[in-house]
């Protein structure tokens, strides 16, 4: 049976682990403006990234956006996922495909749409001024809010589909039994559905949180140059100053924080929701 995992394992080892090992080695090199890097075994890049208040702020912003987007996504996705899971209409397959529809559009194209909506000359501002709610353009684009809205738009389908798959597995009789015993709808949700849907909430949250932590195109396009998250900061080091060692160390710090937060967060979330 082990042979079944060979193709996928080989692919991961070749295309993911090997380049990562290479990057890990690069992160320990010394940066040189002319030759790009000098072979070394130094922790200077990691120490600089950890000690620099700027990168601490960038990491805090990234964490804040990722946690915020995950919470908003859970809140928005749960009702939609419940409705989808309990749907018995012949249109269920069509609705499921529609849920996935936003994933068919690339992040850059989707962001371009948000720019057209949220820009100073965009549709939202035009509408606000058109109905007399504002007499000047309101800054909607290049704000943290625009980034959160943009990222939630990207990750929402992942959460809806993950949750609906788990909710479908919850027997409807369990809800009916609780209702028959006098539980109000909110109590049914709180005491029956939510605990049973915990694996879905945790899995969906982990998936969404990881995607948010690594978001690149949306923060760059909707957050503007002043809004800094980790993935664009990593890219900056590689592309603008060719500082591969520092860029690689930032990437590994992002990876480590994402793994740590995922493990700790999912464990806390699982315990709380089951309690």
């Amino acid at each position, binding site marked *: 049976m082990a042979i079944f995992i060979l193709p996928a394992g080989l692919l991961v080892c070749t295309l993911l682990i090997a380049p990562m090992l290479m990057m890990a080695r690069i992160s320990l090199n010394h*940066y040189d*403006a*002319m*030759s*790009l890097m000098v072979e070394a075994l130094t922790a200077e890049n990691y120490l600089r990234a950890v000690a620099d208040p*700027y990168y601490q*702020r960038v990491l805090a912003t990234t964490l804040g956006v990722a946690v915020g987007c995950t919470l908003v996504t859970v809140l928005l996705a749960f009702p939609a996922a419940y409705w989808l899971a309990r749907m018995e209409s012949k249109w269920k397959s069509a609705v499921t495909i529609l849920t996935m529809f936003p994933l068919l559009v690339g992040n850059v194209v989707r962001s371009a749409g948000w720019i057209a909506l949220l820009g*100073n*000359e965009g549709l939202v501002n035009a509408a606000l001024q058109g109905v007399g709610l504002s007499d000047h353009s309101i800054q909607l684009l290049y704000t943290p809010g625009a980034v959160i809205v943009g990222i939630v738009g990207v990750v929402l389908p992942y959460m809806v589909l993950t949750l609906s798959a788990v909710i479908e597995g919850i027997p409807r009789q369990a809800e009916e039994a609780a209702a028959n015993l006098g539980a109000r709808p909110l109590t049914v949700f709180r005491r029956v559905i939510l605990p049973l849907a915990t694996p879905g909430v945790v899995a969906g949250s982990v998936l969404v949180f990881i995607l948010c932590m690594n978001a690149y195109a949306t923060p*760059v*396009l909707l957050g*503007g*140059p*002043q809004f*800094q998250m980790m993935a664009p900061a990593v890219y*900056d080091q*590689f*592309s*603008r*100053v*060719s*500082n591969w060692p520092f860029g690689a160390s930032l990437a590994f710090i992002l990876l480590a924080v994402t793994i740590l937060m995922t493990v700790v967060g999912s464990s806390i979330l699982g315990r709380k929701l089951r309690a």
Partner: protein
Amino acid sequence: MIEMTRRGLIGAAAASTLLPRLAFADDPQMVVGTWGGDYGDLLRETVDNAIMKPMGIQVLQDISGPVPRRTKLLAECQNRRGSMDVACLADFDMYAATRQNALEPVTEKIVPRLSKVLPFLKKTHSVPQIYSAHTIVYNTERVPTPPKSIHDLWDPKYRGKIGLSDFLFTTNTAFAAIAGGGSMSDFGPAKKKLMEWRSLDVKVLASTEAVAAALKSEDIWITIIAAARGYMWKQSGIPLGHVVADEGAFPTVYEVAVPKNARNKENALKYVNAMLEPSAQKAFAAKMGYVPTVSDAPLDPALDKQVNFTEAEQARFWTPDFGYLANNQAEMLDFWNKDFKG
């Protein structure tokens, strides 16, 4: 019926991968590392097809951004054979490749058209293909009196109306350095002037395209960008003019070079020579607004007036200290990101 064993099949498959090379063994091929878009199209049209093809030389474009191209050039420089025969890069990137001894020297003997190159653009290991300068570009309707000095960029009457490209942080820092009393080898005074810009609500725009959009919507009236860009945007209907300030402007030169480990140096040098032909040079000026680097490619007077620089303006161009820029660019980006934008 032909019977083939599994081993035979694998052998034949491996051999077939060599076929393309064998089939074209008599066709001289060469690889040019270049930008895509208008630049790549113009190269294909005016050099690859118009000059190289009649010579029987087939040109393959290796299209990428400048950073991967520079990295590839530097990373491959220790290899016996490189992947590019000709590399197109901006002057700053070419300087780094020259310093790493990655480029073949160029002389008039091997690139005859080099004799026509404007003296102030000549280099030892690369050939200037086209040039322009980062100047003050302004909306002619909103700024009826053209700025004269770079100090005008700090005039409070333009509060909130000056936009800077995030991508051009080095150029913007250079302008701030000169305004603060620094030089091309001393960007220290730039910090104070950058912070003054910040207090004047200068807008930092994510990309060159965002600068164009902001100029179009009149969200900004003034920026610092290549005069060639200003020309292209003017062609698209935005009322723009450019000015080389009294203190000068930051020249931007796009260069080509032949890596030392190029597989096909002979054709590569022919290619570099062809890029300096007047027909190719004029086409880049007409389409992209970049000025010819050779003296025998006069432009149509109307175009010349819009994209070219007078001798007095050329004399005011700053001479970038690439060594200083390379050694300080990481620190400049840090200040730009942390203090100016932060």
